[in-house]
């Protein structure tokens, strides 16, 4: 076992600990950025002027009327920027644009004595536009040749040969919608010059170092002039990885120009209409299977909706192109990925980061192919799992591949899959108007940033003479429980109780040059850095203790606040050793550092070993669909998931449950609708508030929800044997989509392949039911005409009902089975 993964006796990690701020949360005492702002009574409020065009040149911007509004102090425009007028990382995101690139694009910002003054001031700013042609949908962008970034291909074997020799070939198309993060706390920043005349920015960000960098280049200041703190976020989910930084820069610019604190908090509609989202993908696929139901080849294309600027889309696309295999061995592969440029908000990180779209693609293949192949979907999926030793299309051997079938069979058993399948079949036979469906899907998700240099982290650990410990690390807390885990790691490494450790807010003046808390790597990277710092201090303290106890330093043990020596009768407290160390002039603080070893990636050939390991899991979901309306309920969800040796089981279970429900929201409910008409509000987001953009509520919570952490899960080479957990469970929600497909299939003839739009809203499900029923009708008529004809595997395209003005939003698939000549 590596020293990183080995746990001492009595570890504090592994205990089910409540979130370190839970008491603050329930009593309303835990502070968030805008709570801190309320006590800054001298703060000015910033309010944006937003574009009312999808794409236009600004020909005039007049602020005089705004300045005449009582309480308006200043209007920030491009002319005010002392440094670079850019909010992003690629230089393609002007902070104060002269060409608006999407409906809602922030043009300039009004500073007022109150929110009311700033709002009225913004309404009084006059903007004149010269309208330019706009591209809203992916299809429009493809037609217009509007692309950005670099297209990529993942290739292995001879795909054309594989498909032409396959016994069965299917193809399909799917357009998956984007997703709004809808963190409950909208973007917020507070900037002011502190008593030391340093620019201080409290920002709700997953990446304080990037906030610092963006503020520095906008203001033309060195980074050491700026401190950014991220106390805690009311949710991030990737939406605060890049998106807060331009906003922080606006607040910082305002503070610089007025000498007053500036408070900026987007309201919900501003947040939804200004900031980035999960990209929608348009995907087409052709997949070949042999007679045993084994995948022999996959040819596909993914076109990602990149929005107005590149943001993180290149990396999102990379992850999609590294996850379309999910848990399956696909001998021959050719998958193309590209990014279109559209006049929409930027498209950015969101839990899973392209992974979900990739996984959706391959699960769509199985969901469609199973009925046509006449193989139970669960069995079809299992047959195609990676075997140990097999490598992904990009050439990384799938470490611990044997875990997937183990998790699978464990889940099948614990959720009584077979028995319930039979019960459901009986239920469906006896109910004409409601049908149930049960589906199980796997996840294999690569952990590490695809870009290797991000995989590093730092920490600062301080031990005081009284034995109390203060830790700092580069990761941010957005609810995922990172700080709780870090406290547990420090307590374990130093051998003190959890109560002896306090964690101080994440700040750029404590740990510099940090990576975003993202890609699920927060605990892996920062935990290793915290442990590294603690190890340094503990080793120094061991030397001090060895002198006091009269034993060899290697024989000193730290556990639960006591310091003992092997064979020594005396026992010291951690505080006593700390005091002794101070008196002996031994350093009681340390900077910790960690970099993940053994990663490499060649983006030209699309090969390498970008991931330090894979997280595995599986979920079984049962739904019930009302055939009259398409409305459905999730009756039961069972999950077995691999988090390694859990650092904090209650927190890990919370990540799994929350990830699942968020994924279910993306796949079934959350519906971003843009105005694609040619009317005056073309490009406007129609679902731009909480009343029109619906995220899961209690009614989407599975009625029964059983989550089990996979045992036998030690992860060699990772912090205390644990694995990352933030993102992978989101994709377990594919099982709800597949369960809906099964239930809808119950309304159709046997073998009816169900095409389901994404998100599978009640309306989308209804149209799929309608199509299935029509197929039943067609089948009955057909078999009445030609007795004995089987309907298995016939195309559904012809069976689409004609009475609906709006057919299912999917193009009917080409599902004909091409028999191998």
């Amino acid at each position, binding site marked *: 076992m590596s020293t990183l993964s080995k746990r001492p006796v009595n570890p504090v990690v592994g205990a089910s600990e409540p*979130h370190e701020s839970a008491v603050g*949360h*329930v*009593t309303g005492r835990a502070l968030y950025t805008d709570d801190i702002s309320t006590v800054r009574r001298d703060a000015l409020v910033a309010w944006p002027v937003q574009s009312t065009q999808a794409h236009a040149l600004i020909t005039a911007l007049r602020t005089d009327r705004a300045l005449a509004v009582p309480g308006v102090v200043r209007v920030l425009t491009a002319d005010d920027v002392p440094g670079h007028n850019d909010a992003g990382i690629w230089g393609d995101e002007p902070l104060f644009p002269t060409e608006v690139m999407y409906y809602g694009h922030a043009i300039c910002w009004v500073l007022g004595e109150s929110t009311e003054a700033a709002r009225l001031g913004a309404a009084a700013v006059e903007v004149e536009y010269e309208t330019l042609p706009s591209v809203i949908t992916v299809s429009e962008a493809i037609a217009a040749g509007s692309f950005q970034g670099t297209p990529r291909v993942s290739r292995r074997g001879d795909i054309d040969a594989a498909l032409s020799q396959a016994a069965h070939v299917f193809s399909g198309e799917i357009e998956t919608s984007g997703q709004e993060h809808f963190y409950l706390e909208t973007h917020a920043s507070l900037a002011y010059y502190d008593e030391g005349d340093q620019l201080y920015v409290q920002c709700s960000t997953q990446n304080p170092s990037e906030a610092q960098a963006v503020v520095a280049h906008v203001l033309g200041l060195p980074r050491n002039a700026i401190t950014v703190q991220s106390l805690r976020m*009311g949710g991030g989910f990737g939406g605060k990885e890049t998106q807060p930084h331009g906003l922080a820069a606006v607040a910082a610019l305002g503070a610089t120009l007025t000498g007053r604190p500036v408070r900026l908090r987007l309201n919900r509609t501003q947040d939804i209409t200004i900031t980035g989202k999960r990209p929608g993908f348009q995907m087409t696929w052709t997949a070949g299977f042999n007679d045993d139901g084994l995948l022999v080849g996959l040819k596909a294309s993914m076109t990602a909706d990149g929005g107005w600027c590149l943001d993180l889309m290149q990396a999102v696309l990379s992850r999609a192109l590294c996850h379309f295999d999910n848990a399956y061995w696909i001998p021959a592969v050719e998958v193309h990925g590209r990014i279109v440029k559209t006049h929409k908000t930027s498209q950015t990180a969101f839990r899973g980061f392209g992974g979900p779209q990739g996984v959706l693609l391959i699960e769509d293949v199985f969901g469609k192919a199973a009925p046509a192949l006449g193989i139970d979907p669960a069995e079809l999926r299992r047959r195609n799992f990676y075997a140990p030793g097999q490598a992904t299309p990009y050439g990384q051997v799938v470490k611990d591949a044997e875990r997937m079938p183990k998790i699978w069979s464990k889940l099948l058993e614990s959720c009584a899959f077979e028995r319930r399948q039979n019960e459901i079949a009986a239920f469906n036979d006896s109910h004409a108007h409601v049908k149930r469906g049960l589906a199980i899907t796997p996840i294999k998700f690569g952990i590490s940033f695809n870009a290797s240099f991000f995989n590093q982290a730092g920490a600062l650990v301080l031990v005081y003479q009284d034995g109390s410990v203060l830790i700092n690390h580069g990761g941010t807390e957005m609810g995922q429980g990172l700080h709780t885990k870090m406290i547990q790691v420090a307590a374990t490494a130093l051998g003190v109780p959890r109560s002896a450790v306090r964690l101080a807010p994440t700040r750029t003046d404590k740990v510099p040059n940090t990576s975003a808390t993202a890609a699920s790597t927060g605990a892996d990277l920062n935990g290793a850095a915290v442990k590294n710092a603690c190890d340094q201090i503990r080793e120094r303290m061991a030397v001090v203790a060895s002198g006091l106890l009269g034993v060899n330093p290697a024989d000193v043990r730290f556990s639960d606040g006591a310091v003992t020596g092997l064979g020594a009768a005396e026992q010291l407290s951690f505080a006593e050793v700390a005091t002794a160390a101070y008196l002996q002039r031994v350093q009681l603080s340390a900077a910790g550092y960690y970099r993940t070893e053994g990663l490499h990636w060649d983006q030209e050939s699309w090969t390498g070993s970008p991931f330090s390991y894979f997280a595995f899991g599986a979920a079984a979901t049962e739904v019930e669909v009302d055939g009259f309306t398409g409305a459905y309920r999730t009756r039961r969800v069972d999950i077995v998931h691999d988090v390694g040796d859990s650092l904090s089981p209650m927190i890990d279970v919370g990540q799994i*449950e929350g990830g699942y429900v*968020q994924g279910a929201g993306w796949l079934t*409910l959350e519906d971003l609708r843009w105005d694609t008409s040619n009317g005056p509000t073309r490009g406007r987001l129609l679902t731009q508030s909480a009343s029109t953009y619906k995220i899961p509520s209690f*009614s989407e919570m599975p009625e029964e929800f059983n989550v089990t952490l996979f045992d036998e899960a030690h992860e060699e080479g990772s912090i205390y044997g644990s694995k990352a957990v933030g993102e992978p469970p989101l994709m377990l929600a594919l099982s709800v989509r597949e369960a809906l497909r099964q239930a809808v299939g119950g309304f159709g003839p046997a073998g009816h392949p169900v095409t389901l739009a994404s998100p599978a809203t009640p309306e989308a499900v209804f149209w799929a039911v309608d199509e299935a029923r029509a197929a039943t009708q067609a089948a009955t008529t057909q078999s009445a005409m030609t007795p004995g004809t089987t309907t298995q595997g016939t195309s559904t395209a012809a069976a689409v009902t004609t009475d609906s003005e709006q057919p299912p939003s999917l193009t009917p698939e080409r599902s004909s089975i091409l028999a191998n000549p």
Partner: protein
Amino acid sequence: MNEHRRPVSPRTNESAIPNTDDESTSRALPGVTVNGQRQLLGDVASHTTALNWLRDLGLTGAKEGCAEGECGACAVMVASPDGAGGTAWTSVNSCLVPIAALDGQEVVTAEGLGSPDDLHPVQSKMAGNGSSQCGYCTAGFACSMATEFYRRGRSEPEPESPCDEHGPNGFDLHALSGNLCRCTGYRPIRDAAYALGDPDPADALAQRRDRPAPAPVATDLRAPDGRFVRPGSLDEALGLMAENPGATVIAGCTDWGVEVNLRGRREELVIAIDQLAELRTLRTVTGTSTPTETTTGNTFIEIGAGLTLSEVERDLDGQIPLLTEMFPEFASRLIRNRATFGGNLGTGSPIGDTPPALLALGAQVVLVSLDGDREVPLDEYFTGYRTTVRKPTELIGSIRIPLPLAPITAFHKISKRRFDDISSVALAFALQVDDGIVTRATIGLGGVAATPLRAYATEDALLGTRWDEQTVAHASAVLGAEGTPMEDHRASAAYRRIMLSQALPKLFAQAAEGRVDAGEEVSL
């Protein structure tokens, strides 16, 4: 949205103030009791929301997640009349209520429920079981959960309820239907709720229930952004309306608050009418006790326009099964705790949920003004998109529902999300079948035209025919052609239309399975 700094303004308080307790001297100044301490409103603006006012007091536990009543991050507890002389703690969206509307009232926030050293039972259950991740939603959840914790009779066996979302401790999950959490997936929050015991008898908030809720207080707040008046009587309200034709009437503010927050609506004068005793009665009128000439018939149930949906739900106690079915489908508990029947009809919205139900029930609207009362059948009340026959000087006083009720009733709400969503289509049915023949049929529709509609053609297709599959098929085709459904982000026109034609077969199937609210055995 937050009105944080505002110039000092003159504020007067002209109305006669009922003195209900010994605080008569301090009552002269508008104020709200927050976590047991009276806080003066001072120079507050008349549009300042309770949320922003509380946060400015330093009570930042309540958060703004949406400012439109959707997320519940702003939820706080308000002491309200329990209908039996005591107090019920009710949860409300503080983002929608102007603080002026709470003058004289008592509010408890998460900070007041408990402190880190002395957690409230709700807080300790939530803190211990992973109910919070980012924590932004948590204080709001704690308040919603605490009001249900204190609901009298909660842990006694529930009467038959239209949904099965109840814990073994009687906790009704719908109490949390207006609170959103993006992190947890809700399971731990449900478990925390279902694990709650009964309040300790010594619990101050439990004891508070035994005393009457604060009486309504007349308020007249004048601030630079406008004037807020809570008149002391109905006549005073009607008089003010007559004098100020541009004035806006507000009740629960669940609709108006959204206008203020999201669309920047500001009023010179608002008149709050929700506390007027004259608008807060619920009674069954039989025979000659009819106060005015009425087309409703002699016997009806009268619902005061100023009662909240939650109050009507509680006090009707299942007497009108169609409404019993509608209540849990209407918004969330948080919204229903403030939203009034008068407000739902007052908006004139074509997608409100009470109009289809009330149309099916054959309801009449009573309009009151200084000139007297008049009764209008609900199907004549709506005149166009958000327009009605109500004159600016008139208030909706009450709604009358004629008795006896039809025995077969159903409410079908089609929406994307099951809890707390606006209807794409809503249908309400009230039918009677005697000896297999349909003898009564009233059907109300919402979301398929510029106004709520009665489905007269469908009713005609049903009346006098045999209640069987053929009739249902025929009538469904008629129903499918009613109205002029449109396409929007909630649903396509095609889906709306097809939902109309699916509704009768669904009702028929439910009736066959005995799953509708049938007052008597239906012979099919």
